[in-house]
């Protein structure tokens, strides 16, 4: 870890967003994770996404459980709301917070241990309830805090740092998310911010359960030959199905794509996403085909990344529950409590 705080001085030429903030204003404290941890790159991708989207930091709630990944909310968005919950229990805390105040942008930060092992049930039910959130797993395939045992997402046959092979079948969180009703699903790599940042921006603008699985190499325990979550391995086996350009009041920065290979998608908040197809046969709007595509490529040893699936017409838990527009936490007793007369007439109606 680093002992000094990041100097306050900053480059005088860096961009300022509509709120007058630079990306530096979205930072948190200095990371205590191992130097070179993929998780830190993801934190900075989130910082960059919030900066680009002109998000007021006080409108974000970042929630996490336990683990290396779950420490990261401290290292970003220092001026946002935060909740570090019990191991694997972040999804229910997030659901509760969302029920109470639907006006915040909810960001669940988790890892493969927190979401695929101890918190698997929580993860599944939070997604299937359609909670409006961005759920990010920082997936490194090992338990870093306990010195590198295989996690539930480690691929079968991959080698540990000590030399042993993993004999258990892996859990693919992306496939699960598709299966249980996530309306925005993506996968990316911590070492590719050009792909990751627009993906997070799109997920934050999506209304509904958005899930992004980010492969994030553990430099201390899972960045060796034989690991399927090492920097080199992921770079060699990365199959990006599309490239995203997120347009907020500005022209996209990337180069023009060949005609017919890109499409524009409008998101809930009116912002636009330009999707460049790198694989002509891939359609991110067809959930069933997406699942098949993932399985067949996984069988071929490829890691499919990019925007896997998106339902532009998605709805969320509050729509399903038909809640009132006003966030519940802003209602006073008079609005929330019907009073004894009201209760009596309600009970009478059921007799």
């Amino acid at each position, binding site marked *: 870890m680093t002992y000094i705080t*990041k*100097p306050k001085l900053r*480059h005088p030429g860096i961009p300022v967003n509509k709120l007058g903030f630079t990306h530096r204003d979205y930072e948190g404290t200095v990371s205590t994770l191992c130097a070179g941890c993929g998780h830190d790159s993801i934190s900075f991708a989130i910082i960059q996404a919030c900066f680009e989207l002109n998000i007021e930091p006080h409108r974000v709630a970042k929630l996490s459980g336990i683990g290396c990944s779950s420490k990261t909310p401290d290292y970003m968005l220092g001026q946002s709301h935060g909740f570090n919950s019990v191991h694997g229990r972040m999804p229910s805390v997030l659901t509760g917070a969302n029920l109470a105040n639907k006006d915040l942008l909810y960001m669940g930060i988790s890892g493969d241990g927190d979401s695929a092992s101890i918190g698997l049930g929580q993860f599944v039910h939070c997604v299937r309830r359609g909670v409006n959130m961005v759920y990010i797993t920082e997936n490194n395939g090992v338990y870093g805090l306990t010195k590198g045992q295989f996690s539930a997402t480690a691929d079968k046959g991959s080698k540990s740092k000590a030399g042993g092979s993993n004999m258990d079948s892996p859990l693919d969180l992306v496939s699960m998310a598709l299966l249980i009703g996530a309306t925005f699903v993506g996968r990316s790599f911590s070492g590719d911010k050009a792909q990751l940042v627009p993906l997070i921006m799109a997920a934050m603008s999506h209304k509904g359960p958005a899930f992004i699985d980010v492969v994030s*190499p553990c430099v201390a325990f899972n960045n060796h030959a034989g690991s399927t979550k090492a920097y080199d391995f992921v770079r060699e086996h990365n199959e990006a199905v599309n490239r995203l350009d997120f347009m907020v009041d500005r022209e996209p920065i990337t180069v023009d794509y060949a005609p017919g290979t890109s499409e524009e998608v409008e998101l809930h908040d009116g912002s636009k996403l330009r999707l460049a197809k790198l694989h002509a046969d891939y359609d991110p709007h067809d959930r069933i085909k997406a699942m098949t595509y993932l399985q067949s490529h996984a069988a071929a040893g490829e890691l499919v990344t990019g925007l896997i699936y998106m339902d532009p017409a998605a709805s969320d838990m509050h729509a399903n529950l038909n809640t009132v527009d006003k966030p519940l936490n802003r209602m006073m007793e008079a609005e929330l409590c019907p009073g004894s007369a009201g209760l009596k007439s309600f009970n009478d109606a059921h007799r």
Partner: protein
Amino acid sequence: MNPAHGMKPTDIQNPDYFHKVVDCQWACPAHTPVPEYIRMIAAGRYSDAYMVNWHSNVFPGVLGRTCDRPCEPACRRGRVEELLAAPQPVAICRLKRVAADNKDDVHARMPRPAAQKNGKRVALIGAGPASLTVARDLLPLGYTVVLYDSDASAGGMMRTQIPKFRLPESVLDEEVNYILDLQPELRLGQKVDSLKAVLAEGYDAVFVGCGAPRGRELEIPGRKEAAANIHIGIDWLSSVSFGHTTRIGKRVIVLGGGNTAMDCCRTSRRLGGDEVNVVVRSGFEEMKASPWEKEDAMQEGIPIHNFLVPKQFLHDKGKLTGVLFEKVKAEMVNGRRNLVPSGEPDVTMPCDDVLVAVGQENAFPWIERDIGLEFDKWDMPKVGTTTMQSTNPRVFFGGDAAFGPKNIIWAVAHGHDAAISIDLHCQGKSVNDRPPPMVNLMSQKMGIHEWSYDNDISNDLRYKVPHAPIEKTLKDVKLEVELGFDVKQAFLEAQRCLNCDVQTVFDTPKCIECDACVDICPMDCITFTANDEEDVLRTHLTAPALHATQDIYVSAALKTRRIMAKDEDLCLHCGLCAERCPTGAWDMQKFLLEAPKTGYACHK
């Protein structure tokens, strides 16, 4: 993008590359290793800091009070604080003084006179900073050095032109004496009036370091008639310095906008000038005086009037009564800034005395023109810019005598270069065969996240040097105005230094492209990108490249075929890139460069 057309990996073996990153050292004519001695000051190692300075610039105590400070405008601190209203460089010059003020007795660390003479004799004409530097560099090697000066004591313009309230005599004496202790032969109080005669004495080499001794005249009507109260600035300062002049009229006008003018006006204030005015042809910004000298003058209640050209000295039967000025304005003519009459009525300023400080000139009436020493069309000797050699191979020049009026630190730099040439010449070697600098690059890693320098960046703004109370200083022409930083202030100011000599060194094969350095860098200096030509590459860095003169450090191609590009411009040298690097691809390494000089033997 075609990688074949991109930038070549930076050659960090070339000493110039990292030297340029140390902006202060690169800008210093004598290439003093500034961050090295500033760290020593912070650590309370004043004697060590003094010796680092002494080796490079010979007069740390003098320069710590009087230097023109080319290092400070170059200082990176003045760029990284750009968001503040008044970004300020580190007070490098005044920290140098702290080393001189607080050091222990350093006599034991000084070189001794050579035990054995080498039989070569060198004459130095003028005993100012250039000649004294040559003497210091040559004496420990065994040369016999003969020092000529028309004044009775050595020191040159440092003694005669710099007022004692800026440079106490004791400070100058101490540093001149370190050189006189090496036992040059002194011929002080002897004016040299023939170079031919000096050469005839059979010297192996002659060094001319006589300065630019003539103050420029101002030939306007009334000059002759009112001559009794019109004085040439540098001559008058010299007369004050020797105690010949002790008073001046109540109302004084100083003509000129350079540092000599500032010394003249401030000296006048102390010798009875109650109403002292500085009048300058140019605008305030264009004045040649250093900003801090203008500031000091104004603080002593001396107004500076700009855009006024002297037209006539007014007098009443030979008694000066005032000066008539024409008002001018600046106008761009064919892309050049010209001063043209503004059309406003002329201005009369009454006065009792005028000091003319409108520039200095070289004068070589004592150099014969038939000794193989060529002069150019401006009547200046033709001198090699690094060899300091004239067209007469035995004669070398340095200081103001070489290329016209500059300053002490340039004189010292010339002295080092001339000494190298004289040494080579006396050994029968080519003076173009320059020795390389001594360079050392060493990792500062002490532990996993510990460095042997303090990498935590101070947010303090520049500290001001305290002054003696003005009621006292204006009454005593010898009382030093600046008190110097105390030890605590010096520490805090030293902590503002960014340690630019501790370089970020990148080892390409070790990099796994995890982005940790890009993310942590507080100044967004680092980019991993496709290679391209430099001007294109500069446009797609993480943060815009603001200064084209600052280099981009480029790696060889990485595994993804991208390159690492680091804009050196605003790097804080905080070492966070190296702390967050999992593989040690980044390392912080101290680059210590000692500019070449003769007499490495004198280093202790």
